[in-house]
């Protein structure tokens, strides 16, 4: 599998580390309460299809990336800098 890092270009999978679901980008406000944090941390969809994920270009520019990947065939549909999306 290969990913196109928005900063570095197309690179081999082994330069990247999978860091979980892209849900992690939406950290609840501190006052949102325990249930919201539990959802944030634990509750995950398990789609057969496009899935938004967080990856880090650990062996490269170290950017955190939001990757939309089709879980059925590993087709990478979208790669964006998490920093840009979170802004």
């Amino acid at each position, binding site marked *: *599998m*290969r990913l196109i890092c928005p900063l570095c270009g197309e690179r*081999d*999978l082994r330069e990247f*580390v999978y*860091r979980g679901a892209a849900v*992690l*980008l939406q*950290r*609840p406000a*501190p006052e*949102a*309460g*325990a249930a919201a*944090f*539990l959802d*944030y*941390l634990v509750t995950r969809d398990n789609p057969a299809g496009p899935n938004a994920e*967080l990856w*880090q270009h*650990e062996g490269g520019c*170290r*950017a*955190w990336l939001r990757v939309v990947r089709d879980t059925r*065939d*590993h*087709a*990478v549909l979208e790669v964006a*800098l*998490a*920093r*840009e999306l*979170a*802004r």
Partner: protein
Amino acid sequence: MSRLASGGQIDRSRDLDVLFDGRQLVAHPGDTLASALLANGIRLVGRSFKYHRPRGILAAGSEEPNALVTIGHHAARIPNVRATMQEAHDGLVAFSQNRWPTLGLDLMAVNDLASPFLGAGFYYKTFMWPAAFWERLYEPLIRRAAGLGRLDTAPDRDPHEKAFAFCDLLVIGAGPAGLMAALTAGRAGARVILADEDFRLGGRLNAERLEIGGQPGAAWAAVAVAELAAMPNLRLMPRTTVTGTYDGGTYGALERVSEHVGLPPEHAPRNAFWRIVARRAVLAAGAIERPLAFPDNDRPGIMLAGALRAYLNRWSVAPGRRAVVFTDNDDGWRTARDLADAGVEVAALVDSREDVTLPEGPWRGHAGAAITGTRGRRGLKAVRLRDRAGESWIEADCLAVSGGWNPALHLSCHMNGRPDWDAAIAAFVPAAGAVPGLVAAGAAAGAFSTRAALSGGAAAAAAALADLGIAALPVEIPEAEDAPTRIAPLWRVRGAKGRAWLDFQNDVTVKDVALAARENFAAVEHMKRYTTLGMATDQGKTSGVAGLAVLAELTGRGIAATGTTTFRPPYTPVPIAALGAGGAGQGLAPQRFLPAHDAIAEAGAVFVEAGLWYRPSHYPAPGETGWRPACDREVGHVRNAVGVCDVTTLGKIDVQGPHAAEFLDRVYANTISTLATGRVRYGLMLREDGFVMDDGTAARLGEMHFLLTTTTAAAGQVMAHLEFCAQCLWPELDVAVLSVTEHWAQVAVAGPRSRDLVNDILARPVSDADFPFMACGEAAVAGVAGRLFRISFSGEHAYEIAVPAGHGAALYERLVAGAAARGGGAYGLEALNVLRIEKGLLTHAELHGRTTAEDLGLGRMIATAKDCIGKVNAARPGLSGPRREQLVGLAPLDPAGQLLAGAHLVAPGADPLAENDLGYLTSACHSPTLGHDIALGFLRDGRARRGAVLRAVCRLRDRDTACRVVPLPFVDPEGGRLRG
């Protein structure tokens, strides 16, 4: 000898020194071991897996199921090498396998007599009782009797390699389709890789007597290969099998770099495993012929018809004197013609089809006929013909069989693709789009004529170029044979008694498949596992389709509905040594060395690996045995004089920016923003789930500039976490985070005389008043701009000095020399660990991911006035309170009692069982300062149990030590030594 007088693609001017079971063979460059064996009249080359049946060479390519041999001696020997894939070379030594004592007289052949008891699934039925016998008796017995070659148990010292390549178009197979695809793409200027498992490119063109554009096919192929070899944008990879397809246009390939030479060139690996990333690929892997299933169809001398042509035409070998051809399709006729033209007597051309007009030739044609049996234990002697006239025996030492051809579509199925059944050619063909970017062409796509292969290859390449936006030049398709595929598949000869083999390598017969169907293992994947059909090292290349076709007949479902089993990588066996190249021993594993590594090594330190780092464990002095005396002495340096330790391994993270303080408040549990410039604070980081991630220090070097330290173990994790926080959670904060672990060498100087020692090398000496505990700042260190921190991991008055890494060794050497002059010296990791346990300080033995701040007695560090990562979840019920195991200190009641990390705590009267478990020890050591063992551990409701007496039980080392819960730290609880 059965080498023909002339012809073939071998160099008769040279003889090669080749041994098989100790017998000298006459072989020439261009030969495979298989062709050399046949040329030397050797037909019996192996014994079958289960029944130890005598077996000969069936095929001419990588699909060979029978002719498995062991190459070489001792540790370098390689078992299960297909003789058809092993090139002959000077010094080649091959041995037959799975026979005892010899190939000719194999006593294990008694298995064949027992075959009625050894049918499919026999081990599930026969060896049932008593149950305990299975593991101890039956299985070892069966394993010893069955099997293939054996590996040597000594380590394999041969070098192997991993390699990487990229291209626009990967062409898999260099037959007519592959060559045309490569020519089309190569001429257009695309970056092309052409890989073929053979050492001679050309595929079937080398095996047939076909013409292309008026010249012999092999000659045309040679011209094409010469043109390709001259292209700078094209890489020819002979002896390279593409073994698997993976996501994103990635292909695995095994290149046999030096298996074909006696003495590999210096530094040449034996094999290289390639990872090829291709934007597009053409699968031109050709097709594999199917044998026919009739009684005793496994005797040496029975060969695939196409393989027989290959031996005749390419290697100029006549595999017999009197041949019979048995076919269910037109292609088999070619073998009769080629045999006759080569001067081999063809006794009969037997075609199972009723309504067919057989070609004229010097043979007797039998349409609507079949072979129903054979004779000849160690080599074929006669075949039994059943035709309209009845049954009769024909003397023959060679039988060519053709059951039609299966496209070699395996690579198209590696990403869950299922092939389509094409009834017109009675074969599965690759499903379009089964692998993104891969298109099949030629015989691999079911287009079996030469002309169709040439045009298919060119078209596939042109389509790939168009996809890639590369302009293709028109390519002329040369004239070639364009015969239609005519076949009436004969999956098994009916009405004939005896065992008819489907899978030669795993000894699976039609009867076994029938048994599977009868016992309701009728799904193709169940049948496969019940009978083991297709599960041998050849993965059913010659048996898979025939097996499922027989199953389809028996169940009446039809072949398309029965479907295939799943093809998985690798296409052919790949040595683990090639996949793991660089992984044995130190291999390619990175190593991290301290700046002072050489000086530390020179001082005689014993090193220990900490992650990738190499750190000194202890520095044995003359006369000291083991680590304990050295460790105790080094602890004494620090407690009584001054010790020096390279602590560069600690993670160092530079945090700068207008929002740096705000950022750190959010990632640390405690407040950092209130820290004054020039001061250091202990900091605790939580994970978002509320457990402790790491601890360390935060030093404020300026209003907008912090330097964090992390533990050695968590440096990478903390760095990634801070990057996540900065990039993903709070991109609005203007803060930059950078790892500077490698940039700064850092040396700890600890002990009552540490101030005197650091003042030796500081341009501006420090005093306790102007540089108190937890102070930090820039410092000129022996003329170098460095940093000074008054922090301590030993509980002593201590400093850490940082200088740019290049000066680290010099700094370390000066400090060690100074320490020695003051009655101290260097200390290693063992002493460092003892010092910190004596002070109750934490490492990842305690911060093991399941402990909370509350567990560690640090609950009050979580600031109430601000949010931080993990704060909400740390407050979850269940993460605090008396049911939790809390950090405690433990000391043995008897000063000689031993405490061991990993021991579990139980009440004095309780059995040391899981239900009585009260906690466990995480760190333990002998304290030279106190003169007895001490330990840190986690004890249920531990803080309330101070003074309690417990047992620390270690079952691994059989220790059961009475101990008491004592307050932390063990040494200097008031901290006078630290602050003073």
